[in-house]
């Protein structure tokens, strides 16, 4: 019998939510790593029992955890993330140059083919890789050493590499996104990188609104059947590319606000995408106090509000960039977590929603594993 396992990272620990394919009754396990900030947990697509987790603390820094039994037990793994060679400098908030300093792991992306290989996106922005199940990490320094690196600047949340996408047809082709540097693509397994930001416009954030780098990309999403099509939630604007990032065009259409953080693609409909509009960069909550997921079945431009089961008054939570995911059951499930501690699920592509839990700590990440 199939089912789903939802991995939830929060400000004060991790939770694992499990259900059968009906997705009506849920078991809640947690808090795991109670009191720690759990930025991200993700399972290997090759071995669903292999989970990786980023565990961090302002006091005690970065630690990492791995489970080999689907989250029942965990063991600490390597937590040394050392920049390769001279770390160099990037742009600081005041325009001066500032040394690259490791702070934390924002995102983990397990390999599509090898359970022992996993990528880590970190703050200050860099990409690390482990090929020994997380025991040791080495930097793919070609990204940080890109000629534009000194121009990258931290967003409000820090200079973080928060999105990693592996092309399922060519594992050497990688996409990453950095706040606030933009999107980058590697075609050689992460050795060399090309900024892919042509078409982005950041009138209110950059003096040169269509600069090669510096854009505050919040999240990217891809359907595995179409690796040249990427969707982007930028600081402002929802964008898409049909040529692997070489050119982007805006598809915000009729959204009530095109500011937001996560973006996701339906598991079986490559032109169906989801965003959660947020009022503005200075007011990180839904417009009009209504928590609405917006769905486009046309790959953008035309959007419909999904509200059934979501609070439609007095709701002032946020949904962070890694806090939305989809399962791959026949009737696609969509999940998201809020800074108010709710995790909502829809088992019918977003038509109807219900909370799985209501009172967790602020949710930082949501990932879903579809189990057979």
């Amino acid at each position, binding site marked *: 019998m199939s089912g789903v396992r939802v991995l939830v990272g929060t400000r004060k620990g991790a939770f694992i939510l499990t259900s059968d394919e009906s997705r009506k009754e849920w078991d809640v396990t947690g808090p795991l790593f109670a*009191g720690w900030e759990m930025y991200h947990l993700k399972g290997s697509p090759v071995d669903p029992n292999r989970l990786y987790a980023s565990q961090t603390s302002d006091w*005690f*820094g970065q630690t990492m955890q791995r489970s080999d039994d689907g989250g029942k037990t965990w063991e600490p793994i390597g937590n040394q993330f050392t920049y390769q060679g001279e770390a160099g400098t990037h742009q600081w908030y005041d325009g001066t140059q500032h040394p690259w300093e490791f702070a934390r792991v924002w995102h983990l992306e397990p390999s599509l083919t090898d359970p022992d290989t996993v990528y880590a996106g970190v703050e200050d922005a860099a990409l690390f890789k482990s090929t020994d199940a997380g025991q040791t990490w080495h930097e793919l320094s070609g990204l940080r050493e890109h000629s534009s690196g000194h121009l990258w600047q931290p967003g409000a949340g820090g200079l973080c590499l928060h999105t990693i996408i592996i092309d399922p047809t060519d594992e050497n082709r990688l996409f990453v996104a950095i706040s606030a540097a933009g999107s980058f693509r590697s075609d050689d397994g992460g050795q060399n990188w090309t900024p892919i930001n042509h078409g982005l416009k950041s009138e209110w954030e950059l003096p040169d609104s269509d600069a090669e780098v510096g854009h505050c990309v919040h999240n990217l999403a891809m359907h595995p059947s179409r690796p040249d099509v990427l969707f982007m939630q930028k600081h402002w604007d929802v964008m898409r590319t049909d040529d692997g990032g070489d050119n982007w065009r805006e598809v915000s259409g009729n959204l009530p606000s095109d500011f937001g953080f996560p973006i996701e693609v339906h598991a079986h409909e490559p032109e169906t995408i989801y965003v959660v509009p947020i009022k503005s960069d200075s007011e990180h909550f839904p417009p009009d106090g209504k928590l609405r997921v917006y769905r486009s079945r046309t790959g953008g431009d035309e959007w419909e509000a999904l509200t059934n089961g979501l609070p439609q008054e007095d709701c002032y939570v946020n949904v962070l960039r890694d806090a939305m995911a989809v399962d791959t059951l026949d009737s696609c499930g969509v999940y998201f977590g809020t800074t108010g501690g709710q995790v909502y699920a829809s088992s019918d592509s977003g038509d109807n929603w219900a909370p799985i839990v209501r009172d967790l700590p602020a949710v930082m990440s949501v990932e879903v594993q579809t189990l057979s």
Partner: protein
Amino acid sequence: MIKVILPAHLRTLANVMRDVEVDVPEPVTQRTVLDALETSYPMLRGTIRDHVTQQRRPMVRFFACERDLSHEEPDAPLPDEVAAGKEPYWIVGAMSGG
């Protein structure tokens, strides 16, 4: 044996009870105590001191014998009571909040 008291988060990480005892070769200093602690509990590496610089993390404090040793030289001898195993060496998460 040197008694070391860890903060709650690090006890959980190291899967230990409140007090830890580590065998520390002479001289007994903050550096040698932390080296011994990290040898016995490698998962603590990087959580108390930076991996590379070995500098104390900013929000970690070291106490012993009712003194704050956080700003002492890492190679300075620890108090005799700590070296004799009579008093514990405290690793503390800095007070923070509001």
